[in-house]
């Protein structure tokens, strides 16, 4: 059971809300302050990716962001677009990203969002199936002082 669950219509305007809620929950659950910028960016990328996937497939279902304390801070961003993660959407890193983006005109090819997430977050998995795809990211909590 998530501590906080956010469901929003797949619109770009709501992605900022997802970032703000994620950072507030992370702070409340006890993630180190140094990780908050990383969480803001990674959750923003995952939420923006979900919105783009919904829009590309004309899916009006809500995007779901769940934030929970499972000994680590766990964020799951779920879309409802079925099928496997596209081949060209696998995480890239370093100059591979540059090679891909240099071909575009103002719009990154799909996959750069995942590349950024993979570059930022050590503990990340992307799964997909008939019900949609889930980006799951974890961050450690501050040691508790008793």
């Amino acid at each position, binding site marked *: 059971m998530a501590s906080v669950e956010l469901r929003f219509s797949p619109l*770009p*305007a709501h*992605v*900022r809300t997802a*970032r703000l809620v994620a950072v507030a929950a992370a702070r409340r659950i006890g993630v180190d302050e140094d990780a908050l*910028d990383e969480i*803001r*960016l990674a959750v*923003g*990328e995952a939420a*923006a990716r979900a*919105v*783009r996937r919904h829009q590309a497939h004309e899916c009006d279902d809500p995007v779901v962001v769940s934030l929970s304390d499972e000994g680590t801070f766990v964020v799951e961003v779920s879309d409802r677009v079925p099928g496997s993660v596209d081949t060209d959407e696998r995480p890239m*890193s*370093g*100059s*591979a*990203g*540059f090679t891909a*983006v*240099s071909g*575009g*005109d*103002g*719009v*990154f090819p799909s996959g*750069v*969002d995942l*590349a*950024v997430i993979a*570059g*930022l977050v050590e503990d990340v998995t992307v799964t997909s199936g008939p019900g949609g795809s889930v980006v799951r990211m974890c961050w450690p909590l501050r040691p508790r002082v008793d």
Partner: protein
Amino acid sequence: MDLSLTSRDEGIRTVVGVGGEIDVYTAPKLREQIVKLVDDGRYHLVIDMEDVEFLDSTGLGVLVGGLKRARAHDGSLRLVCTQERILKIFRITGLTKVFPIYATVDEALAAQD
């Protein structure tokens, strides 16, 4: 926090001051501004990002698109940024090799290609 945009001409260059958050929602506004400048014949752009509080991959895409547009007219697109959290996303994506990044607007204006 929305996106704020200003622009001023400095000789052949145009300095675009960007403030606030550049993300999937606001990036189209930045794209429109860059496209308009290039369409108006301003091919040498300096994007001042010192007041940017957030940048995601959508924003990077707009900057890459702007660079392509400017270069198509033998122009340039230079960035001004010293904020570590913004620079980090350029490094992760390898884009520090693509964009000339300066510490101040004056340096960006004065630099020789």
